[in-house]
């Protein structure tokens, strides 16, 4: 067991983690909004999800009742679902590639007015 050190001495405050999560989220968002390739958009989405997970863990750690494990459980499920979603998303990209011979996102624009 890792010895529990005094939190005042050791831990960065909550905002740091939150800021980190925010920054990570923004980077992921930027990638989603800016990159041309669909797979990279997916990577961006994964980053955003991870930022959210970090948020959960941070709040679990700094919040009341950490013994309930709520944040960890949540993150667990989030990871699982994110994995499933990544799999499905990539399958979609492969199907897209098969039809349009491209993985450029701006080529998939048939749903328009």
């Amino acid at each position, binding site marked *: 067991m890792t010895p*529990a050190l005094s939190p005042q001495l050791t831990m960065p405050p909550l905002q740091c983690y939150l800021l980190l999560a925010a920054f990570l989220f*923004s980077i992921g968002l930027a990638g989603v909004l800016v990159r041309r390739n669909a797979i990279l958009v997916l990577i961006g989405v994964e980053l955003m999800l991870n930022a959210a997970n970090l948020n959960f863990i941070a709040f679990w750690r700094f919040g009341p009742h950490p013994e309930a494990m709520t944040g960890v459980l949540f993150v667990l499920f989030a990871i699982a679902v994110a994995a499933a979603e990544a799999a499905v998303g*990539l399958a979609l990209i492969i199907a897209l590639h098969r039809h349009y011979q491209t993985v450029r996102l701006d080529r998939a624009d048939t749903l328009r007015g």
Partner: protein
Amino acid sequence: MTLPFLIFLTLTALVLGGALAAMMLRDLIHSALALAVSLLGLAAVYLTLQAQFAGFAQVLVYVGAVAIVIVFAILLTRGSDPAGQPVFARGWPWGAAAAVAVFGVLAAGILRSPLAGTEPPAGVEAHAAEVGKHLMAEAVLPLEVTGLILTVALIGAAVIALREKVES
């Protein structure tokens, strides 16, 4: 500058650097690998936050499965677009602006919140046994449902990616 803070900063650099690299590199494989690095860093952050199980799960699933699947997908869809294409999509400043705006708002919200100066409380270590107990006790339903989701996603992905039968 205490040690944990330094560790935190390092890990931050790792995470953010990996993320930036993933988003800005031209080569897709490089992006995927950068993503993996970022995710690893994030797992380390979880560990520092005493969420051991979450960290390991992160490594196992995200780095070990998701990143690899992404690499597979990259490899499978390689060569379709001609090289030399611009990296960023049309109208990318708008996207960047949007991201900056979002970050700004979030940061502002974080920095102005009253949580600012709370003492970090004594935490609990999230070992596998503890997590397992809670999973089986309170969260058994989400557990099962998640299993179902995974099954469905597996089947769905397989169906979507299946090559259609060619009429012979």
